[in-house]
C-alpha cells in the first residue's frame, strides 16, 4: 500500500509516495537518493542513520516514512549552505572527529540536535546524549572536543 505524504526535506517541500511499511531511511536513501544518511544496524542502536525531524534527532531506520507527514526533515546534505559547511561540520573537520566517516553524518546530526536543545552541554550530558551514536573507529574524544569548541563559541 502506498500513500502520498507531504514533508519538508532539507528546506524543500516534497510530495512523496511512500509504502506503509517503508522507513524514513529507505525513502531518503532509495527514493530521494540522499545517500549521506547511512544504515548500520536497522534496529535503532548505532545512530548512523540519525537525521533531524523538527529539529530533534531521530533514528530514521525506526521511523515510518508516513509519520513524516507535515514535518521538517533535515539530513547531512541539507546542512551546508551555498557550499559553506555548517559550524558543526567545520568543528568535526577542525578536530578530526572521524576516521572512516561512516558514523559521521549521523553523529553530526545528533550533535546538531544536542546543541539545538542545550547550547552549553557539560561532559556528562554530552556522553549521555550521544550514547546512541556508535563510532567503532572510537573517535569520541575528538567529537567531545568539537562540541566543547562549538559550545564555547556559542554555535
Amino acid at each position, binding site marked *: 500500500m502506498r500513500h502520498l505524504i507531504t514533508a519538508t526535506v532539507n528546506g524543500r517541500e516534497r510530495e512523496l509516495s511512500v509504502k506503509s511499511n517503508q522507513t524514513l531511511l529507505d525513502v531518503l536513501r532509495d527514493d530521494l537518493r540522499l*545517500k549521506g544518511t547511512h*544504515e548500520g544496524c536497522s534496529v535503532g542502536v548505532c545512530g548512523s542513520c540519525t537525521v533531524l525531524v523538527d529539529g530533534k534527532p531521530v533514528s530514521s531506520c525506526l521511523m515510518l516514512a508516513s509519520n513524516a507527514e507535515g514535518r521538517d526533515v533535515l539530513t547531512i*546534505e541539507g546542512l*551546508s549552505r551555498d557550499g559553506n559547511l555548517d559550524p558543526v561540520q567545520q568543528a568535526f573537520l577542525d578536530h578530526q572527529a572521524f*576516521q*572512516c566517516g561512516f558514523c559521521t553524518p549521523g553523529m553530526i546530526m545528533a550533535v546538531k540536535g544536542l546543541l539545538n536543545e542545550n547550547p552549553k552541554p557539560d561532559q556528562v550530558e554530552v556522553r549521555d546524549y550521544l550514547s546512541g551514536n556508535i563510532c567503532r573507529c*572510537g*573517535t569520541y574524544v575528538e567529537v567531545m572536543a568539537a562540541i566543547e569548541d562549538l559550545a564555547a563559541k556559542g554555535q
Partner: protein
Amino acid sequence: MSAVGSDVPRVDGNAKVSGSAQYTADIELPGMLHAKALRSPHPHAKLVSVDVSKAAALPGVIAVVTRDDLEGLNPYYGAVVEDQPVLAMERVRCVGDVVAAVAAEEREIAEEAVELIEVEYEPLPAVFDVVEAAAPEAPIIHEERFETQAAIFREQLNLNAGGNVCSVFRAGDGDVDAGFAEADGIFENTYRMPPVQHGHIEPHVATAVWESPNRLVVHTPCQNAVGLQEQLARIFNLPESGVRVVVPHVGGGYGGKTHARLEPVTALLARKAGRPVQWVLTREEVFLTGRRYGGFVRMKTGFKRDGSLVAREVEVFYDLGAYALSGPANAKTGSYVASGPYRVPNRRLTTYAVYTNLPPAGPYRGVGVPHVAWAYESEMDRIARHLRMDPLELRLKNLLQEGDIFVTGESLVSVGISDCLRQAAAGIGWRGREEQADGATEGSLRRGKGLAVIMKSTTTPTASAASVRLNGDGSVMLLTSSTEMGQGVRTCLAQIVAEGLGFPVERVTVSAPDTDVTPYDKSTSSSRTTFHMGNAALRAAEEVRDQLLEAGARALEVDKADLELAATGVSVRGVPDRSLTIPQLLRVKYGDAVGSIFGSCNFQVKGGLDPKTGKGKAAAFWFFAACAAEVEVDAETGKVRVLDIATSVDVGKAINPLQCWLQNEGSMLEALGAAFFEEMVFEQGQPVNGTLLEYMLPSMEDHPERFQSLLVETPHPDGPFGAKGAGEAVIPAVAPAIGNAVANALGGVNITELPLRPERIVAALAERAAGASRDK
C-alpha cells in the same frame, strides 16, 4: 613546514563531513538488482537437496543460484587453503553458511523468494569448543583436504595437521625441561578469550556487474583489492586482468574486510542475472560472516627468585570456525610471540589453528597476539605478586633489547619497548613498588593499576607496488591499492610522496584501489601500509624527482646536486631566475610540453620462517606497545570504572602524529569493549546475541575518563623516514593491562577468562572468600 611528521588534515575530510563520500551501498547501477541469501540453520549437516523452483517463479526474481550453478567453475576459494565453497556444496559447516541466493528487482521480493526455497538437510554431529575440536575423536568438519594455491603458504606453514587441526606452528629455543628444572618457581594456568565482532558500522556489501562474459567488475569495501581480484579470477576461470575490483570509501574494516566474504556469491548472481547485483548484509548476517578467533591458551612459566624468566611452554588453540581464511598464517603470528616480548632462554611455543562448526572467523586487529598477550601479561603480574616485585621492574628486567636474537633467530632492530612501557606507566602516575600493595579502598570500591607490553610482527614476506604520476601542471597522483578505511592511509601516503618530491601535500592526490589502474599490494592489513606502501610510494616519488632534476641539469647545464625542486619546477640553488617550469622540463625530456612523468616501485621484503624449525625472518619490522590502566572496582557489584588509561606505541617515526593518536584511541576502545563486555555467545552453534541490540559496542559513555595516546619514535633503518606501523599495536596490550589493574584492585584475584563481566568478578571474589574460609 615539512610534510612528514606534522598533523596534516585528512585529505578525505570534506567528503566525510559533508555526506558526499560514496560508500559501496551508495552505488546504484542502471538495472541493479538486490540480493538475499538463504543460510543454513544447522551448524553441521549434509545438504540433501535444494529446490528453488518456487523462488525462481516468483515475479520480480531474476536469478537464483545454488551449488548447481558452480558447475564448470572453481567452487572453492580461500586466502590460505581453498576450503570455502562459494555456495554450500555437499554439506553446510556452520549456522549461516550460504546455501542459495536470490537476485530480484526489489529487496522485499528477494526476501520473499528466499522463504520459498526448500532445502532438505541431514544433521551431522558438530563440535564447537576449540579444544574438543582438536581432539582426534571430534567429528571431522572438512573431510577433503584442500590444497593451497599460494606456494608461499605451502613453503611456510604446516598445513593439514590432521583431524580438524588446519595447521600447527612451532617455535622454540633452548632446553625447556632443563629450564623448568632450574626454576625457583613454576606457574601453570589456562586462559580463554571469546570470539568478538569487528563491529565495522558499515556492513559487508558488494556490487557486481559483468560487462561481458570475460569481464567482471566488483565494487566492495575490501582491504585487499588485489587478493580479491586473484580469487575471483580463479573462481570464474578468468585472467586476473578480467576482474576489476574497485574500492569506494570504506566504513571501517579492522581486519574484517580483508578477505573475500560475499563478493563471490554476488558475482555469481550477477553472472546468472546478466544484470548488476548489489548485496548489503544485514547486521545479523554480519555476525555470521566474520569475527575474531576465540582462543584457548595453556601457559607454563618457570622463573628465578630474582624474577628472571627461565622457561616457558605455551600451547594456543585458535578457533577458526568453519573456514580457514588466513587463520593458519594468523596462528603462526601468535606462535613466536607466545612467550611475550621477553628474554626466555628455554621455550616451546605451539599454536594450532582449528576448525569448529562456528561461523568463520578471520583476522581482527592484532590477529593472534591478543590471545597470547592476555595470558603472558597476566602471568607476569602473578609472578610479580608472588615475588613481591614491582610489575614494572619485573618486566623491564626481562624485556628484549635492541640487537637481541629473537626466538626466530633474527636480530631485533628498532626495539623501543622499554621506553613504551616506562612512558605508559608514567602516563598514569605509576609509583613503583607501592603499586604492588593493595589498592586504595573506599567502602566497596577498590582501586588498582595494571601494566602490559606486547610485540607483534607484520606479515612477511610481502610486496607493495606504487606509481607516481606527475602532470604538466605540477599536480601529482599516487596510484596505490592501499585501502583507506579510516586509518588515514591516503593522508599519510600523500605526506610521504610530498616529502619525497619537496612539494606541498595539497599537490598530491592518492587514488582509491582500482585493480584496472593501481598496482599490486599484498593487502591493507597487519599495520604494514605505512612501511611497505610508504616505501614504494617514496621510491616512486624519488624516481620522478630524479627525472625532473636530470632534465633540469641537462637544460640548465648544471650539476643535479645544484638544483632545487618545487611544485613549480626546478631552479638553480641560490639563483632563482635560472629555473624551468614543469612544462619546460617536459619539453626537455620529451621534445614537447605534453605528457606526464612516471615513477614506480615494487617494494619487496624477503623473509619468512622455516615451518620445520620456526627460524628465519618473521617480520619486516616489529611493533612494540604498552598500556597502563587505573581502575576502580566495586567489590559488591563487580562493576569496573576505568579512571585512567595510557597507551604507548613505538611507531618508528610518526608521519602524522594526530592520525597515530586516532588509531590508538580506536584500538584502545575496541580492546576495552572486548575486555569488559564484548563476547559472541553461541549455543550449539546458534548465535545467542547476534544483533547490535544484544551485543553492545563501546559508546561515548564507555570512554575512559582520561586517555592518553603516547608515542615512542625509535627509527627503523628500513622504514620510510624511519616509520613502522601503528594501527593495531595497542590492541593486545589493553585487556591484560585492565585485567592486571582489576586483579591489583582486588588484591590478586586473577580472572583468566574474558570479558571481565561483573558477575565474573563477583564470582571470583566469592571463590576466593570461600577458599580463604576453607584454609582457616
